[in-house]
């Protein structure tokens, strides 16, 4: 496929812009969900939206997207509130509350959908695209509507930025300075619902939750600032959405929703591995360096202690002795070689080692520092 040609292709451009909008909005609101340890609230909301779609169709008889999305929003919102309510009025923990709401709402939606499908007037075709999503069906006006909803949600976040920030990180403090904590929570949940329902038609009920969690979790790895995280999450979401749409269009039999999720997951994997300061790779390297530093210091001080028991400063000691002195720790030989490279120890014979003057000076300095 011509990489620049996609812009002139109406369908492809619409789909890519649509999924990018969905990803960016979900990234922004998902950041707060992830930081509040409510990552799976998105999963519950998107599943809980299903009966709303079915009921909206049953009540109005139309398949107009705004009507169905409004139904989805109401049901998703009710589901989120119900899960919150269950944890506060019963002794159920949040995982069980989310699970109950998710499965019961989804089951109810499935019952309604199949009920609709088996009715004789069968104008229902297309309702089940909400399960797995069908991005190719996006029209330009849908994308404009999505962008409007997304922009409204993001502006509300910007408007109440400070309040939401305080409430996210320290709800107790937020309440003590007189912020309307419950209403802020309601606001964030409502915006999250909005971010999710605009994506249901393209990405599907089952996978929409991934776009809430993945960009935010990836963004978290690169920064310790909320503003940076939100901006990055929006960017990651938009990139996953657009690239997912383009990749899925480049080959046959590549459904958009899953490919978008795969792109987002790839960003997560790279972030978890390679992020500076937090990433697994850098942490491994840092751990190894720290272990080596600790090891060489211990071996050096052992060599120093041994040297003090002998008159001959170049009296060699077997590596096995040093290993025994460090409690059988593996890596002692590596530490010795490292000391040799730094000129603090020298080899004598095949397996003998002794401390150099430089090493002695260093060991004495370290002993002084620690005493």
């Amino acid at each position: 496929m011509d990489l620049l040609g996609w812009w002139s292709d109406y369908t492809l451009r619409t789909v890519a812009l649509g999924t990018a909008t969905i990803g960016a909005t979900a990234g922004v609101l998902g950041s707060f969900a992830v930081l509040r340890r409510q990552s799976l609230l998105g999963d519950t909301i998107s599943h809980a939206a299903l009966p709303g779609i079915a009921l909206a169709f049953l009540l109005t008889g139309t398949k107009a997207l705004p009507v169905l999305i409004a139904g989805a929003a109401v049901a998703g919102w009710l589901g989120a509130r119900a899960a919150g309510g269950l944890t506060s009025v019963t002794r159920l923990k949040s995982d069980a509350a989310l699970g109950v709401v998710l499965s019961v709402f989804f089951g109810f939606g499935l019952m309604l959908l199949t009920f609709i499908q088996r009715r004789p007037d069968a104008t229902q075709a297309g309702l089940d695209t909400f399960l797995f999503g069908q991005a190719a069906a996006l029209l330009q006006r849908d994308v404009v509507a999505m962008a409007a909803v997304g922009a409204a949600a993001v502006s509300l976040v910007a408007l109440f930025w400070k309040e939401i920030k305080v409430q996210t990180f320290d709800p107790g403090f937020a309440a003590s300075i007189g912020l309307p904590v419950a209403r802020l929570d309601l606001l964030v949940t409502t915006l999250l619902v909005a971010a999710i329902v605009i994506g249901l038609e393209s990405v599907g009920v089952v996978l929409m939750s991934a776009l809430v969690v993945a960009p935010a979790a990836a963004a978290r790895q690169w920064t310790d600032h909320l503003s940076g995280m939100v901006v990055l999450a929006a960017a990651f979401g938009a990139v996953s959405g657009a690239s997912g749409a383009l990749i899925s269009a480049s080959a046959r039999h590549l459904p958009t929703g899953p490919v978008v999720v795969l792109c987002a997951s790839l960003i997560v994997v790279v972030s978890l591995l390679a992020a500076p300061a937090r990433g697994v790779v850098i942490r491994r390297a840092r751990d190894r360096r720290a272990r080596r530093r600790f090891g060489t210091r211990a071996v050096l001080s052992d060599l120093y202690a041994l040297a003090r028991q002998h008159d001959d400063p170049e009296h060699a000691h077997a590596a096995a002795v040093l290993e025994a002195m460090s409690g059988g720790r593996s890596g002692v030989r590596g530490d010795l070689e490292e000391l040799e490279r730094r000129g603090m120890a020298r080899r004598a014979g095949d397996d003998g080692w002794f401390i150099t003057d430089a090493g002695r000076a260093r060991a004495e300095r370290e002993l002084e520092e620690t005493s």
Partner: protein
Amino acid sequence: MTAAQLEIQAIAVCAAVACAVPGSFLVLRRMSLMSDAIAHSMLLGIVLAFYVVRSLQSPLLVVAAALTGVATVALVEAVAKTQLVREDAAIGLVFPLLFSVAVVLIARLPSGVHLDADVVLLGELAFAPYERWIAFGWDLGPKALWVTGTILVLNVAFVTAFFKELEVTTFDPGLAAALGMSPVVFHYGLMGVVSVSAVGAFDAVGAVLVIALLIVPPSAAYLLTDRLQSMILVAAATGALSAIAGFWLAHWLDASIAGSMASAAGILFLLALLFAPDRGLVAAARRRARRRWEFAHTMLAIHLFHHEGTPQAARESSMRHLGESLRWNDDFRERAVAGAAERGLVTRHDGRLTLTDAGRDLARRAVVR
């Protein structure tokens, strides 16, 4: 009721009870949503096994699905262990990834192969009686009944055999470790059982609604009882009832059996939430209302007792003044006084209230306390 209807209900009940037993431990261990991850990821196991054996009938598919379930748990824990994301986010990252891979692989299958994501995901119990197990010319009944029945027996056997261990590792992992039971072993044992149950419930309700059978009945039971044994029994009964009620609901609406079973379970959960003895919302509301009146009666008694024998006694004990000094509106005042009189705390003459001995006693005790 036809034989097929009876068989469908038997399969549904077996699946529901088989799920309710390990599901109780999931709810207590706060791992409910792990079942969501397991149920979704299984699709990948099924697809991968299908790519290898090229048959949808092979038992290898079931084995692969169960193994993927356990692998999902391990993967979630590995991601959470990096401490770069919290456990809830780890679940939310892992299963959509595995599920997406599965959906893409299914889409890449040559057309004509009947493996649809939505069949696996949503299940179709109505056709289960047509897949029969026939050995040596004998019709032994629907295959699904054998599968779910076997899993039910295995689950009950597992939980009965390791009840003590599961109980201790669930409520006090530290103690369990001190007693020499490995929490890790039982954790993965339980996850294996959950995975196998989820596979077995596939045919009955599909992957997504497996979580309804695993979580909803035990959650309802958790609202009703304080003992582990009774919680498991109540959960099993709730699951069985949801299965039967769901079947008839689906029959009546001509809708998905799986969806109807989840809806029925939801209704039973709602009933438990509202009407549970002591902890239910109705019982709690009634208790609150009763306390409110008891408090009002006590306030009234203290007020009268405080002014008894003082020059202001006549004024303070008049009905008209009472509302002002206790800040009660007329309606509340009338009902509070009527209630107090009914309890024999006060008597009422010409708009004046007098404490009875019982009322005086109550006031004295309340003030001392």
